[in-house]
């Protein structure tokens, strides 16, 4: 028996089992819940790195669940793209899990903490399940696990979060239903649910109206789940009022996994030429995402609430990724996939800092950031790094992905979109330099002198780790592209 050949299934099953065991621990010894929860996510990080190494060394991993052959049973297929996503999701969930220890104590009552940890683990399970699976219906099941736990995690935040969560439920269910309808349409004309089997079957059916409708429904359904601009209504409220650990985790992973599903559907399930050449869909998506970038950035300027500003920036970033996927050349795709990693780190780090500031001064208003560097120098240094990366200043990670995206846009001839991308970076600069100025240089007489120190160590470490990771990944982004992302390019790019 060799456990490492089972690591692709263990990464889903271990957090799943842990979420049940957490319920038992609640009745046996409540203090053990938190260490157990962090330990399990730590194991997941180790497993995900193991999977990535296996994929780099031996190529695509296939795992037949229940021992059944592919179109009859469910199959796990892990290539470079999946493995990359799993590493991102598992490490972000681990980092935010460490962070959640102190931040959650103020926001959730003690008796409910074990249930919170269980739900968090279930959200992680759902995301892992979506990432590794090679079956479109199995993907729907895990999408629902992830969504249900995300609704609940949002709803336990501040008072207004409940209404936000309700909107999230309505929108999320419409998205999931559209996805399920897409699965149904595909199933009726092919009779199969396995992605590799469908890749073989679908090309002969590209002329059919059903295929096109199914693809459109997939895209709209996932578009709701990733909050692409006109469908974004649920996101700002949810991430503003959710507990800070939840906003950090969800913003860093949920939408990124949605982007991954979009890539899978558009380029693995269907051939790239179907989306790009045979139908106008990719052209529509390019303009759609350009509008998303423009309006996301524009609305972000006007916000006073820091978390809400970040939410609108996140909407713009989602636009970047959808844009990069659809322009249909190598640079754009590399930029989009690299941006998944960078954006996950940057947004995660910024949301954690927002939560940290809220933990200390009890406010999310940007006006209250005046002179914070005297009290929280390390956190604010991390904030500076993340902000610079968000703007796209060279040594940080954010620069490289944006560079690839702009090069791709220019190469494909979408000059307007390239201008909008640069405009969005300038808007980010405007927003973040305004905050940085408040933090470092404002010495207003009216500024209240806060008498507190740095954040507790358990919140400090995750913030510092993500900030350092932004710098390090910036230096090594060439390596990441040549060893992982290059192999995940779709056929014909």
């Amino acid at each position: 028996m060799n456990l490492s050949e089972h690591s692709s299934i263990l990464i889903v099953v271990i957090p799943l089992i842990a979420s049940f065991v957490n319920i038992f621990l609640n009745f046996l010894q409540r203090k053990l819940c938190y260490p157990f929860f962090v330990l399990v996510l730590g194991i997941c990080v180790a497993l995900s790195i193991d999977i990535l190494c296996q994929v780099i060394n031996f190529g695509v991993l296939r795992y037949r669940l229940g021992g059944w052959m592919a179109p009859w049973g469910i199959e796990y297929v892990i290539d470079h793209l999946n493995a990359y996503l799993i590493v991102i999701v598992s490490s972000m969930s681990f980092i935010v899990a460490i962070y959640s220890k102190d931040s959650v104590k103020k926001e959730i009552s003690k008796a409910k903490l074990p249930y919170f940890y269980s739900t968090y683990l279930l959200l992680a399970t759902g995301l892992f399940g979506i990432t590794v699976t090679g079956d479109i219906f199995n993907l729907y099941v895990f999408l629902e696990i992830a969504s249900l736990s995300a609704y609940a995690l949002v709803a336990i935040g501040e008072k207004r979060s409940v209404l936000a969560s309700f909107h999230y439920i309505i929108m999320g269910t419409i998205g999931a239903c559209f996805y399920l309808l897409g699965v149904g349409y595909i199933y009726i004309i092919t009779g199969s649910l396995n992605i590799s089997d469908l890749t073989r079957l679908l090309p002969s059916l590209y002329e059919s109206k059903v295929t096109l409708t199914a693809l459109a429904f997939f895209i709209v359904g996932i578009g709701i789940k990733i909050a692409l601009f006109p469908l974004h209504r649920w996101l700002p409220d949810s991430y503003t009022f959710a507990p800070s650990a939840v906003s950090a985790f969800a913003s860093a992973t949920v939408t990124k996994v949605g982007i991954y599903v979009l890539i899978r559907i558009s380029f693995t399930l269907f051939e790239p030429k179907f989306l790009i050449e045979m139908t106008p869909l990719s052209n529509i998506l390019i303009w759609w995402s350009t509008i998303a970038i423009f309006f996301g950035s524009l609305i972000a300027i006007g916000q006073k609430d820091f978390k809400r500003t970040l939410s609108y920036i996140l909407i713009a970033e989602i636009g970047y990724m959808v844009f990069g996927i659809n322009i249909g050349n190598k640079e754009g795709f590399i930029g989009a996939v690299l941006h998944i990693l960078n954006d996950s780190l940057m947004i995660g780090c910024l949301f954690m800092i927002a939560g940290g500031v809220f933990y200390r001064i009890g406010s999310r208003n940007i006006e209250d950031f005046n002179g914070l560097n005297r009290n929280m120098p390390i956190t604010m240094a991390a904030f500076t790094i993340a902000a610079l990366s968000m703007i796209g200043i060279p040594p940080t990670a954010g620069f490289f992905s944006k560079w690839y995206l702009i090069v791709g846009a220019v190469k494909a001839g979408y000059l307007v979109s390239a201008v909008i991308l640069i405009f969005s970076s300038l808007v980010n600069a405007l927003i973040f330099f305004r905050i940085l100025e408040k933090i470092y240089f404002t010495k207003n007489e009216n500024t209240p002198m806060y008498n507190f120190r740095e954040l507790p160590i358990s919140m400090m470490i995750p913030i510092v780790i993500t900030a350092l990771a932004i710098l390090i990944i910036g230096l090594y982004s060439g390596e990441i592209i040549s060893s992982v992302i290059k192999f995940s390019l779709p056929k014909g790019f």
Partner: protein
Amino acid sequence: METVIGKYNYWIYIALMMIGFYAMIAKRNLVKKIVGMNIFQTAIILFFISTAYKKDATIPILIKSQEVIDPAKYINPLPHVLMLTAIVVMVSTFGVALAVIMMLYKQYKTLDEDEIIEILRKKK
């Protein structure tokens, strides 16, 4: 005419789906919204189930003594399995949505979305 006879079942389910969808996005009462959600999901389930049907076929429970099994004599079991899963998902979503609605009712003492937004605006 043949199209109508061959496809009318799909059309009925699509009409049902759209009734649910309309309720989800247009109704202002929260409970009506999730009732619409239920109609939508149930219609999708009916849609899937109808794809499993074959003419003159029976339920896929085999009789052991049979030697040669003709798949055309039994309806397709796969959509049934998928829809068992979808039913459970539907029930769970409904439960979670009801829980959230109850929390909302506890906070605002109303189930109308417009009234809730009005209350929130007054607080500001």
